[in-house]
């Protein structure tokens, strides 16, 4: 049985319900990331926010970017962050002060920033279509490997350099091991 465009009797579109649900999950989990005391839970809430953002990317007609979001953010960056949390966890860390002393100033700055962004968005008439366009993955591939091939290669070099630099920074000092042995 086919499902219609909108919920029967109420006339609310399924798209809007999906968008509102994903947006609510995204904003609530993002707020949890910046406010919770336990930093491990912050990392887990960050995974939830990345997943709901991948859902919104699908709604925007970009399944390729949604898949990249799941693979790179949920699969790689979240695991990296959780590893770093476990490497830098001290026993008394969750009991100590989570926020800086100037939190009220930070909250004020964030609220002012949000109001400015919202005012700028609502005051502008965007030259936008009233429909979401679906992005074909083959078009993206053609563009990426034809017109954007130089940035693509530069990014691959950047990733290699970043990994080499990270290994160099995070490895233990070789001198301390020699001291242990002697």
């Amino acid at each position, binding site marked *: 049985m086919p499902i219609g465009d909108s919920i029967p009797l109420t006339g609310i*579109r399924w*798209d*809007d319900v999906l968008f509102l649900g994903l*947006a609510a999950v*995204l*904003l609530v989990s*993002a707020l949890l*990331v*910046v406010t919770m005391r336990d930093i491990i839970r912050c*990392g887990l809430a*960050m995974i939830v*926010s990345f997943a709901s*953002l991948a859902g*919104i990317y699908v*709604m925007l007609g*970009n399944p390729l970017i949604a898949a*990249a*979001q799941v693979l*790179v*953010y949920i699969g790689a*960056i979240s695991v*990296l*962050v959780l590893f*770093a*949390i476990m*490497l*830098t*966890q001290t026993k008394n860390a969750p009991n100590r*002060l*989570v*926020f*800086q002393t*100037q939190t009220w100033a*930070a909250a004020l*700055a964030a*609220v002012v920033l*949000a109001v400015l962004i*919202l005012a700028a968005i609502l005051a502008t008439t965007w*030259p936008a*279509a*009233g429909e*979401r*366009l679906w*992005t074909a993955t083959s*078009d*993206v591939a*053609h*563009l*990426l490997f034809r017109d*954007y091939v130089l940035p*693509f290669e530069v990014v691959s070099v950047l*990733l290699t350099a*970043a*990994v080499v*630099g*990270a*290994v160099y*920074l*995070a490895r*233990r000092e070789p001198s301390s091991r020699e001291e242990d042995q002697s």
Partner: protein
Amino acid sequence: MSNSLDSYLILSGLLFAIGTFGFLARRNAISMLMSIELMLNAANLTVLAFGAFVAPLKTHAAVIALLVIAVAAAEATVGLAIIIAIFRNKKTPLVDEYDTMRD
């Protein structure tokens, strides 16, 4: 609502503001990095929203978003390595205790 560019832009603006608050207010260096990830995601959402509603930008937005995701991965790798290296020396992940240069 899901067919208007404004709602997606408002969503990404709110997400960016939340990330700004976390970056300014948290004491833990890893929390600050997570807030930066939220802000990068908000910027990516803006790019893709414009791509989905403005026809000439459609595929370009997807390519730009892919490149942004790759650069964000590089940034997270180096940032976390730096935090781990500092943690080895100072034994704390809290940024307001990194005050060696004050003495």
